[in-house]
């Protein structure tokens, strides 16, 4: 039973992945300058920010900045966790 379910899930995944590969945009679409032209033309009106770089960072590509902030959070958590554990091990030994 589990093997049948696994096979069905695998088939669905394969169909979706292969169709995704087949339906992907041709290489180089949209033209290299289309996106920059749009952002340079409309960023000031759409976001009200005079600094177009900030507009891209926090508005058009905000999800990317969220990931960056998550990386920072993870790094800080890791450093604090690591140093605290080392300290405790030194004390107990």
């Amino acid at each position, binding site marked *: 039973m589990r093997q049948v379910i696994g096979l069905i899930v695998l088939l669905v995944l394969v169909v979706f992945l292969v169709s995704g590969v087949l339906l992907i945009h041709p290489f180089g679409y949209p033209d290299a300058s289309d996106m920059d032209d749009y952002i340079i033309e409309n960023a000031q009106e759409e976001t*009200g*920010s*005079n*600094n177009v770089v900030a507009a891209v960072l*926090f508005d058009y590509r905000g999800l990317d900045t969220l990931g960056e902030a998550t990386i920072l*959070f993870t790094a800080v958590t890791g450093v*604090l966790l690591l*140093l605290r554990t080392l300290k405790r091990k030194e004390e107990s030994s």
Partner: protein
Amino acid sequence: MLSKIVRTVANQLILFILVFGLYVIAHGHITPGGGFQGGAVIVSGVVMLLVAFSSHELKKSLRERTLSIVESSGAIIFAVLAFAGIGTVFFYNFLVGTPIFGGVPDPGPGPGNIWTGGVIPLMNFAVGLKVIAGLSAVVLAIALFSSGEEVEE
């Protein structure tokens, strides 16, 4: 702890470093810079204090618990601002056109106005809080660890 000359100069300089860092954060939507860069400037001031004074002295005023609370609140403000525009799309700039930071500058090059940008200045502040608290906590923890001090819970 370094000599008294170094400590006095660091005491005077930290004010200017803090003001410059806050300027870079607050003008992130007008001039080059933003939350990450301004936060790094302020943390460089913290590192200067750490070098001039000992980590033992700095531990009295910068508590690691407070720093982690500030960092988490910065992250939460950022995510809440991103979710606030979910009515249209994630990370939608819903404040443009409203009285709060809603100004729209003239197209093309210009000096800019501080009262523009929608959620971008608020997000810059949130990211600035996050970077200041996070990097300060890391620097302080490493300094305390290398000097053999107890890391404050």
